[in-house]
């Protein structure tokens, strides 16, 4: 337990040092507030704007990010299974999956607004498009991880495709799948925020950021960024905790001991 306490200490000390340098440099070099406000100014602004920040957080994170993340990861996973299930689809669908991989967010954001309207569903759709591919790639890679002898065992049981999938290949793929879940936890947030630059009701983290940049309230922009960083890190942290619990058996988690 003191281990974890110490473990938390390092990033906190590191972070405080970073903030201190930031404060000193911005004040010392007289950096214009419209370029980079000092942490103290950002903090003051953050405290002032709590209701706004909460409203934005709810709009962007609780709606767009979570819904899009769940659907995008789910879709990537399902397509990976489909592709795995059928060699035909593997040859036909996988290249198309690659095609979807980098549909640039700024290209699809306006289109999604066209299709799904201004409110959060269009943002969630952008998040779906962004999170789909990492999940597809990692699940496909993960599904090939079970070793030959582990598969042979299933073959001797004449296990059905689904039994092999659930009892062998998915557990073996879990480290890869969690990689995707972790990468996507931050991608989803970026996606939702960027998508709000392309038309939105007047609430949301991305809306606030773009609008307040235009108004040169850069301190509020950074307050919003701080909220995004905390929310994103917490999201990532939760996924990482679940990962430790689920893939406890993987050498990377149990510390490589034999």
């Amino acid at each position: 337990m003191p281990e974890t306490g110490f473990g938390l200490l390092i990033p906190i000390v590191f972070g405080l040092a970073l903030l201190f340098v930031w404060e000193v440099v911005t004040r010392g070099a007289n950096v214009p507030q419209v370029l980079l406000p000092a942490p103290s100014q950002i903090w003051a602004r953050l405290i002032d704007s709590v209701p706004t920040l909460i409203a934005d957080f709810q709009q962007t994170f609780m709606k767009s990010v979570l819904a899009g993340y769940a659907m995008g990861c789910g879709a990537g996973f399902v397509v990976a299974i489909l592709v795995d299930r059928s060699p035909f689809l593997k040859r036909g669908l996988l290249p198309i999956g690659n095609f979807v991989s980098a549909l640039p967010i700024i290209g699809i954001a306006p289109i999604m607004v066209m299709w799904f309207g201004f409110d959060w569903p269009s943002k969630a759709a952008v998040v779906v498009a962004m999170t789909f591919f990492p999940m597809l790639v990692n699940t496909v890679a993960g599904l090939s991880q079970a070793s030959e002898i582990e598969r042979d065992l299933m073959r001797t049981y004449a296990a059905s495709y689904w039994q092999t999938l659930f009892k062998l290949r998915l557990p073996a793929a879990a480290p890869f799948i969690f990689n995707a879940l972790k990468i996507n936890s931050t991608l989803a947030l970026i996606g939702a925020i960027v998508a709000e630059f392309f038309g939105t009701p007047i609430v949301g983290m991305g809306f606030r950021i773009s609008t307040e940049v235009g108004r040169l309230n850069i301190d509020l922009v950074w307050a919003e960024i701080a909220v995004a960083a905390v929310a994103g890190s917490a999201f990532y942290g939760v996924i990482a905790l679940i990962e430790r619990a689920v893939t406890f058996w993987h050498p990377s988690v149990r510390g490589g001991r034999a």
Partner: protein
Amino acid sequence: MNKPIVVSAKNLGLTFPTGDGDVIALSDVNLDIAKGEFVSFIGPSGCGKTTFLRTIADLEQPTSGTLTINGLTPAEARQNRAYGYVFQAPALYPWRTIAKNIALPLEIMGHSAAQQSERIARTMELVNLAGFEQKYPWQLSGGMQQRASIARALAFDADLLLMDEPFGALDEIVRDHLNSELLKLWARTQKTICFVTHSIPEAVYLSTKIVVMSPRPGRVIDVIDSPLPHERPLDIRETPEFLAIAHRVREGLRAGHSYEE
């Protein structure tokens, strides 16, 4: 002996293509195994014992000749879950406890939870692993892992058992114990058993038929039908019949080797 034939190989051959030339793992193997037989396979390392078992199990495809299991193709037999297989390596799933590893085939074959726990308890007792139910594979010693994998293959009742050096990592005492347990099980259930071993006494003690193989290319060089009675106390190993068979096996084995000490 007009027992039905369980395994029948005719001119069976299997060649592995590899980056630097083909490896002939099996060549011209002819063998019939009747129901209820206990057949041991013995031969130098790399002579194709594992490959032959894997071919029976439909894990490798013969490149020539024919192989039938209960008159069916190996694939059909596998679909019928005709056999239980103990691999040469334990192949336990690291995310499952030992009990859960043994439960695996039972889950797949749809046994009820009550049946599962009854069988897990019984087979873990049999291989003397009681008390290790909740451990994970990496927390077990090599021999314990091997015993867990034996328990897993015994947990469901296949009529044909394919066992690839199941007792290789076990000491004499445990081995004797498991040998006699296996014989009891075999006598009770009339299973057909294909058993790979490196121990000549073990092969002679257990088997009704001993298949001696030789490598490069892997082929059968001797098939010995044991004259020993079905009932086999441990001290049968000192009888002249026993020693005679052991001698014949050893000679066959030596012939297959290239050492000339």
